[in-house]
């Protein structure tokens, strides 16, 4: 295993200056970083990918991480919303029931925050408010009720009328029912805080699992930079905890070092990588595509027909990963020629399934079934 966290750390620090960079050592010491003020980047070795689902859940649901929201304005507004709605719920089901509902709803909100981020508090299947549509086809209008569900009943906050096809924000056009003004206002306050949080990319964690078959110093610097940047800066906007595997692999020709292979546990860890990633091609300065003027002119097409690519395929087979999902990349890109190095290499980047369900219809595996 070749893993040089300090070198990766320096690249990350250069690319994302305002990030909170952690390693496995930090996590073991209980230092999870505070991700509310800085984007969190965790650098781990590939063999740690094997227990990634456990680590992610511990990070997302741990008391430490809850501090991310505790004491913030969003938390204050959520508590205020629960306090007001609980007093209204108490009128129907009594104080004890209302208290229980309040506690359970607060726990649920914490889980939603952990799995979906602040947006999930008011939007989506697990939101604390619900929109009920009443179809009025004859009038070409739709009426919507704003509800706060509790037990088998709802608090009905207000009603609004929309034309068919009219798009409308959650906080617009409501006729608020008498007695529910303060509860409605508390929802607007949560909405404002969510907007502030959502505008901030810093709420996200990027967990990089990195492996290389020789010291990183032998790889093209722009390749390392581009691959790490792709993991953090160019990452899709979904999910608040993203786990990525990043492999730096050399071809056998032009490599002066003995190249490492995957250990059994690392091979197992690679099974967590999903298809649809990216392959970065970085042929070395001694490849014929740079030495032969015709081939040099024919780039990038000549790269795909070169000995370099045959070597890369051979190396993939030698490492025993040709059948893995991470090889099913959606795109291959060729690195720039500004900082060519001797070693011919390539990098593979792939997202890993972390089981936080941010993209699916489910929030938590257990919540759906039981």
């Amino acid at each position, binding site marked *: 295993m070749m893993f040089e966290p300090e070198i990766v750390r320096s690249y990350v620090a250069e690319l994302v200056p305002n990030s909170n960079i952690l390693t496995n050592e930090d996590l073991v010491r209980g230092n999870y970083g505070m991700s509310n003020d800085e984007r969190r980047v965790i650098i781990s070795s590939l063999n740690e990918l094997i227990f990634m*689902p456990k680590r992610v859940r511990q990070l997302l649901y741990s008391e430490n991480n809850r501090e991310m929201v505790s004491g913030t304005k969003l938390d204050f507004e959520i508590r205020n919303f629960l306090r007001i709605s609980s007093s209204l719920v108490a009128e129907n089901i009594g104080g004890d029931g209302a208290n229980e509902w309040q506690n359970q709803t607060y726990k649920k909100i914490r889980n939603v925050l952990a799995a979906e981020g602040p947006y999930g508090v008011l939007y989506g299947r697990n939101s604390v408010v619900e929109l009920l549509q009443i179809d009025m086809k004859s009038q070409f209008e739709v009426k919507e009720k704003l509800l706060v569900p509790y037990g088998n009943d709802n608090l009905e906050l207000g009603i609004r009328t929309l034309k068919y096809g009219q798009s409308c924000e959650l906080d617009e056009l409501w006729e608020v029912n008498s007695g529910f003004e303060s509860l409605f206002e508390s929802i607007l306050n949560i909405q404002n805080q969510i907007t502030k949080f959502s505008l901030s990319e810093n709420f996200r964690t990027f967990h990089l699992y990195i492996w290389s078959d020789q010291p990183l110093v032998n790889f093209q610097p722009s390749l390392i930079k581009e691959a790490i940047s792709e993991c953090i800066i160019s990452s899709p906007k979904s999910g608040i905890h993203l786990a990525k595997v990043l492999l730096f692999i050399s071809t056998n020709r032009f490599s002066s070092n003995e190249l490492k292979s995957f250990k059994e546990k690392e091979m197992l860890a690679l099974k967590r990588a999903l298809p649809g990633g990216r392959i970065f091609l970085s042929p070395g300065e001694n490849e014929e595509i740079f030495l032969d003027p015709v081939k040099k002119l024919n780039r990038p097409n000549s790269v795909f027909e070169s000995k370099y690519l045959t070597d890369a395929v051979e190396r993939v087979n030698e490492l025993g990963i040709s059948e893995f999902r991470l090889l099913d990349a959606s795109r291959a890109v060729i690195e720039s020629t500004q900082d060519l190095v001797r070693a011919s290499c390539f990098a593979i980047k792939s997202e890993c399934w972390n089981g936080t369900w941010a993209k699916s219809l489910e929030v938590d595996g257990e919540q759906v079934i039981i």
Partner: protein
Amino acid sequence: MKFPLSESNSLSIDADIRLVNDGEFPMLLMNLLTANSNEGYKIAAMRIREYLRPNEDSDDYYNCINPGWFDDLQNEKIDYTTCIYCGYRKNCTINIEQQNYIEIVPFGNARIPSRNFINRQVLFPIISTIRSNTDPFFGFSMRAGSTRKLYLLTQTLFDSIFPNKSSINFQFDAAIGYDMPTGKAIWPIDQQFLEIYEQITGIINFEIIGKQGIMDGNLTSIDRKCLLDVAIMNGWIKDSDDGEVISELELLCSRLILVLKSKSMIYYFNKLANIQMTPILDLPYVSSGSGHLNLVLRWLELKPLDIQIYLDSLNDDLDESNHCKIVSKIFPLTVTEVPQGLVSLYPRFPAIALSPPHELDQIEIEQPACRIIDVVEHKGIERMLLLDCLGIDLGQVI
């Protein structure tokens, strides 16, 4: 075998702590805190224990239950003060019934490895800096941190209880549960579909399945492509099959879509059919068709008995004999009866795999009925799974 989740705190709530008023005690504590090896920690813990052991005798004193941890052959009596400063308090099971603990229950041939191995390598590999150990299933189980049973069984036994009858091409990463009668994993859409299905089967009989007034498939081009992808993925059609098989599949799906859209059903399924479904995440397939086609495809897989009802409804119709022959060939009936009163749907259990080093490559980290959240190498002869059954009594399932 029981493992405490939190420090022993129930020795005696009202017991007085003896005042230890001299300068040596802080030094001993400091030795314990700064120990940088297991041996160093043990020596520091032994010194504190000896230092704090009461000198006089009393009926309130008791014997340590783990004298071996301190190489203490005499095992003279100790008291609450000795215990409260014990270096191994988080591992001690004294009065464990009164604190939160994990009990590991072996099934079949599974042999529990040593207590030390389970403690250090499997359950609590990261030394906790707080007063309780971090539950390994924290975030996966609502019961994490509380007293409960974890089950240890061999992978072979697990496979025999929860066989995998899903398509070999399915990726189980996002599957959420396991359907016992069919032996297949289920995805978020399936769970919602099955909920509605169970709700309505008591009301509506699926006798309405039939020709639905059509003799040829009428799927949209997108649905036809999706059906073809799924049929290949599931092995419903083979290289040697001619176009007739896919035509009959199209006809079957077209008819079943009409069943879901029929007056008596549309109320139940329309909302579900119109929500966004992400391939691989909400469904097992790599491509997605219309919501109704997606539901029909899952219906075919999860309720194969209804295909029999469908075929029976066409039994006397000679014009349908070829269609019935092909459909029955694609969907041979393989359903296991679940005894009355037993659960047929299970969540995917989180599990820690224990594997001999030479079998690591055989581990499937995403299985239909469980998801492996960690892998630990051990010297046993067989792969084993330590399961959190999320409140389900595995004994009853077996």
